[in-house]
């Protein structure tokens, strides 16, 4: 299973953190700090996998954002890359040509989309269409309804 996913910028600022294992706030911060440092230190041409503690880290850089997942020993690294890519595609479809700013200003949406794609560290829906449909329907349920037709604003 995936243990956690982190999104962070080139400056090391955290944009999204999804944890599928119970850890204290302090531990989460520590792990985040260490990993961000390790991944940012990697050179551009290096491979996307690295061993860290007893986990495998799969990371990929999209424009100015690093998508970083921690998977367990028996998981398939290559399919994790596909998972990351699928998530980016979903964000792209939802926001329309997504960029880092979209994720910054609509971070809760990024979480909602992720929660329709992965659940408990596993893939729950392999159809892009179904994920996006679910998000749309949930958006429509938000109150007051007249506010939520494009990108909702809190």
């Amino acid at each position, binding site marked *: 299973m995936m243990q956690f996913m982190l999104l962070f910028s080139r400056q090391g600022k955290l944009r999204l953190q999804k944890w599928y294992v119970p850890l204290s*706030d302090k531990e989460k911060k520590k792990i985040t700090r260490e990993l961000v440092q390790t991944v940012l230190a990697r050179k551009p041409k290096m491979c996307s996998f690295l061993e860290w503690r007893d986990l495998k880290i799969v990371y990929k850089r999209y424009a100015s954002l690093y998508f970083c997942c921690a998977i367990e020993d028996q998981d398939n690294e*290559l399919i994790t890359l596909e998972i990351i890519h699928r998530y980016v595609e979903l964000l792209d479809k939802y926001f329309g040509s997504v960029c880092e700013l979209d994720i910054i200003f609509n971070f809760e949406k990024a979480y909602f989309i992720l929660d329709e794609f992965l659940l408990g560290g596993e893939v*729950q829906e392999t159809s892009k269409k179904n994920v996006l449909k679910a998000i749309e329907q949930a958006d429509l349920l938000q109150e007051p309804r007249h506010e939520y037709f494009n990108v909702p604003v809190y």
Partner: protein
Amino acid sequence: MPALPRPARMVLPSLKLQELIQEIRGAKTQAQEREVIQKECAHIRAAFREGDAPQRHRQLAKLLYVHMLGYPAHFGQMECLKLIASPRFTDKRVGYLGAMLLLDERQDAHLLITNSIKNDLSQGTQPVQGLALCTLSTTGSAEMCRDLASEVEKLLLRPSPYVRKKAVLAAVHMIRKVPELSDIFLPPCTQLLHERHHGILMGAVTLITELCERSPAALTHFRQVVPQLVQILRTLVISGYSTEHSVAGVSDPFLQVQVLKLLRILGRNHEESSEAMNDMLAQVATNTDTSRNAGNAVLYETVLTIVDIRSASGLRVLAVNILGRFLLNNDKNIRYVALTSLLRLVQSDHSAVQRHRPTVVECLRETDASLSRRALELSLALVNSSNIRSMTQELQGFLEFCPVDLRADCASGILLAAERFAPTKRWHIDTIMRVLTTAGAHVRDDAVANLTQLIGGAEELHAYSVRRLYNALAADISQQPLVQVAAWCIGEYGELLLSESYEETEPLQVQEEEVLMLLEKVLQSHLSLPATRGYALTALMKLSTRFQGDNNRIRRVVSIYGSCLDIELQQRAVEYNALFRKYDHMRSAILEKMPLVEHGGPQDDEPGEGKEQPWSPKREVQSPTEPPTSNLLDLLDLLDSASGDAQPPPALDLMPGGSLLHLLDLPSNTPSLAPIPGLKVFDREGLQISLSFVRPPETPALLLITATASNTSKSDVTHFVFQAAVPKSFQLQLQIPSGDTVPAQGGPPITQVLRVLNPNKAPLRMRLRLAYNHFGQSVQEIFEGRNLSQKFTQDPVYHRGSKEDTSTSDIRILVFLAELPTSFPYLHSPPPPTGEIPTACPHL
């Protein structure tokens, strides 16, 4: 006094989320950002206190953003609960998100959401159920899982796929937290596999995987679904392109990978299942489009499955070949997984992996550290006797340029491989030397011991080794292991340096003075570790006998170091000084070449402790700095330190039988029995000790004594310890005895081998001491044997015993010599270890 107007919070209105974010981003410094956030948090706190329901979700959203930046947000925890309990979907959405971010298992408030989740699961609309299931799967604690298991079970049977797929994964999480819940979730699984909906299938396969991993019974149960899984795979592979689920020409790679993983678990160690999936695996392996990563991901999983189950050999070869193809792929990630998998295979399918050795070696040149590390591990695993030379060449090349954190592994890998497969001794020595020069700081501690031992054993290569080491040392004195070996070698074989040139190296004109200067340089250099200095000092000392010139220079150095601050060096210097002054006549004997010693071999785990092992029977109660509580100890200490073992002697094989044969190194030769009669030295109350002597003809200075203790009495002899000491000109080694108990009535005797080296051919004198428990009492006996040389004469052995209290039962026998030559200063008037020794033993 009029009441103040409404609190200041209305002066600055609370920001909308996006405005807040903008303002935070606009802050130019950390301090400014902190200020903005603190102000806003104060607003949020106030809003929470006021209980403003419609705006609560906005406030929480802001708080969550601030939390992501790293600021404390615990005061929002209760708000999450309120929002979750609210009927509005917007509230629930943010509330559940907040719960997932702020309310992990360790928080007290965590359990409070259980009720809300329960309500939402049973009565909520589908999206609400989805939210609840999501939160449960992300942060559900074990207790929550127990409470809510039945609700989730109900949802597994609902018609809506949206909820079912989430319920299945919630079940996975629950089983992870509370394995007992497997019983509830096992029955629905088979049914779930019949679903068409990919999301539910994904969940079902994941659930079955989780169940099988946790319980062998479940594993057996689910073997029946193998055909169904194969069918699912077949549908995916054959059905072809489907816009909804395809990625880069591969049908639903996520599902394929998940199914393959489950097949792997089911087929492992099970012929029948493996057989059922063989064809399908072959089909997937050959038909998957590998132009993009998705296809490679599926192929990778297929390979992993093939090698893990009982697949046909043709299929295995196919799998290894696929990995070989991966190795040639341009994509670094693919190469990485290939190397990882090949490493796993190298034990089981060695020859198949060997075929790809050249490609693996190529990967050593990768710039990427993760890849080169994998390549290194794999290369080391592929070394065998036929490719040792070329592989070592490659690995040495790698060692020179590899990143620092890989150096230690590479160096020890090369050394290990060299030890196992070295074609010639000279090659072996060269290899070790090269490793020491390239990566000296990173080698393991025992490399030095191994090399000295190797060189010591290769007599024909002494001159060659000493020259090469001398040159290396002259070039660079910073690599400590190399310096240590070089110092030792120069000390042992210094005279070979001065002699004429050895044919295979360039002529080397070395003067005595140069050698001494080099060793002094090592001694004085700040780069040298204390251990290295010790080596250098001892080497200098040895050269005093090897070199012809006068020893003034050496004497000077030795006496200077007599006041060195380092205790070890000081002790050595003082002892060497004493050698020069008082015991000059013994110097050459003491500083002789080291005898050939047995090698523990690569199985020996701690050859580095060789210094301790051979002397352990004597050293049990002794440490160098202890005051002479017993003169015997000092005698032994002096014997030890003076026999030139300042450098750790290589590991001694401590098996009595084995060492003998190895020493002789002539497999066909049994130790010849020199005509020395055995001797019974002790007989008391049924306990008899006899000595037998063997002098191997090849080494006339060596005498092997076997002490045998046998017991014909009615009572067992326990805690038996036998010890011996010899005068200084001899060298004695006690091997480990076969036991410490001689059972009664002629039970198996204890044997112990003593090795005595008598280079001066002096008459042997030996003191023997026994300690044991017999008939409920402990006994100590000391006696002496004289003239135990070529011809053993029946010298009178006298018994002197003392009865000890049982309270001091465990006194070890120390041999001490009653009559000693005056050259043993410490032993002038040896006090007995405990109590008075009566001149007449009551029992004799």
